[in-house]
């Protein structure tokens, strides 16, 4: 085989090896949400959740989930098959800290293109800066049962 004929296969294998090393060393990108975490007593978390809903509920429901309009700061969200609760109405440009707790099995919260895994008993805290308008898409991206693909939360931006 001439050098000319050998160039393309060698280049292809070399490119493959470079990409392989990059992949194995986890240098090919990542889509994880930055999150703090802390262990939580579910009963204590529920008390905080109930207090937040009682204080800031709009009185409306969305798919049997209360719609809540909390002030900027800490927001507690329950996560279970197959819902994120409550539905949120947030102010544009403000910063919220979403405390997410899975109550049953492993779920995840995919917000935009990034994701955080939610294990039962461990609260993950995600900082969310609300965009100027529209809605923030939050959904489960870890297979959690037949209703998994419908597990989409509601975060509306209100003026």
């Amino acid at each position, binding site marked *: 085989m001439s050098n000319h004929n050998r160039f393309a296969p060698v280049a292809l294998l070399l490119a*493959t090896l470079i990409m392989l090393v990059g992949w194995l060393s986890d240098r090919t990108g990542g889509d994880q949400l930055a999150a703090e975490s802390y262990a939580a007593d579910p009963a204590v978390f529920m008390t905080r959740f109930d207090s937040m809903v009682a204080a800031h509920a709009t009185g409306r429901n969305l798919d049997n989930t209360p719609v809540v309009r909390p002030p900027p700061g800490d927001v507690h969200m329950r996560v279970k098959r197959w819902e994120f609760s409550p539905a949120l109405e947030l102010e544009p440009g403000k910063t919220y800290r979403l405390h997410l707790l899975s109550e049953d099995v492993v779920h995840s919260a995919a917000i935009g293109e990034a994701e955080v895994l939610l294990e039962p008993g461990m609260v993950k805290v995600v900082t969310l800066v609300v965009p100027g308008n529209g809605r923030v898409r939050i959904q489960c991206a870890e297979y959690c*049962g037949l209703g*998994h693909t419908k597990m989409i939360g509601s975060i509306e931006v209100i003026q």
Partner: protein
Amino acid sequence: MPVIWTLKSLPPARRSELRGWALLAVGSLAVAGTLALLLGLSRTPRVQDWLPWGPHFFYRALVTHVVLSFEVWFLAALGALSVLAAPPGVWGDRLGRLGLLLGGAGVVLLLIPALADQGEPSLNNYVPVVGHPLFYIGLGVHALGVALASLRLLPLLWLRPRVTVPFGIACGGAIYFAALACFGIAWGLIPAGTEADLFNERVFWGGGHVLQLLNTLILMIAWQALAEREFGRGPLPAALTHAAFAALALFALASPLIYLVGGDVLGLSHRQIFTRLLWVGLPLPPLVMGAGVAWQLLKGPRDWRSPAFIAQALSLVVFAIGGFAGFFLGVADTRTPSHYHAVIGGVQLGLMGVVLVVILPLLGREIGQGRAVRLQFHLYGWGQLVHALGFFLAGAAGVPRKTTGIDQGLDTLWKKVSMGVVGMGTGLAVLGGVIFVWMALVRLLGRREAGHE
């Protein structure tokens, strides 16, 4: 050095084994195709209201459809390809026969709980399951059968001189063993007591990704074999084709290392690193070979009556469009099935070409160049494209994947029309699939071998 197979190149034992694998592959596709028609109808607006079955049928049928059309069809095809490539020998024949027996028995076992309404369906990625011991045993027995048949391929990885198609098939065997290693390691690493849905998702996650390298390689082998039949030579210089086959195998063989360096098997990093395998390890080899196929098809001669030519051209177009759609995936909407139905549709078209143009003639069962042969490729190919287009438009409008009936949330005209397009594409593709299965099964089940009585 191109391989021009003739009937005489296969001894009788190999011929009967090849027929068995082909029957297993096409028979599985026949059952899967029937289920696909029912699945398509149950997602089509208005039609779904008239159907007598509920969501439980939908989910079990979906699991069975995917396993038969996405695992058994491709793995039985690997079994069939192994017959063509394996070096001659008594032990190879014995391994092949035992493999075929186990491959068939496994399919029967896994079908029992699905059809007997037993076990909870789980729509986890890649290898969805029905949660019943017989289903898992069936999967395992089938996988073992294909492994035994593939075992005889491994010497070809080192054998000189390399013959392109057999070397590609041997690389396929290596990829398959890498996938099995991933399944096994994951099974061993996942802690006992892990919740069933998470267990299923993670045990099949890594190996499921590696099997996509195998499916891609099967398409590339099909391109090579069909090009040799149609043009008398492959689409690329042999050394470059070998490198493209080897590139996929290299990524696959390195994949089990992820269980060492990729973090907790139940963690997010582990899941995401395998997702990136399909971004980093998969596209380049088919891109290089696809460019060669496109160039060869453009240069001609273009014989649109030739099944080999049509299979190559349509598989390239459908696969390329599906691959392109992969850059626009949503998180959990129907743009994901749009992508994978098109790329898998491309692989199916290539493999259909191999069955009709290579395997059946090897068995002395010619299909000729009749209208039905051409029609089935066009119906299946264009049907898959329409189907994928509908899913893509519906997904862009927010229709979630893997849902049916009211759960789809078809609350706008756009969504309804898009899902109607999906139903139309399903109908066309199923029709093409039915013609293929009918043509192949009739010839495989027939007793006479033309000119070889």
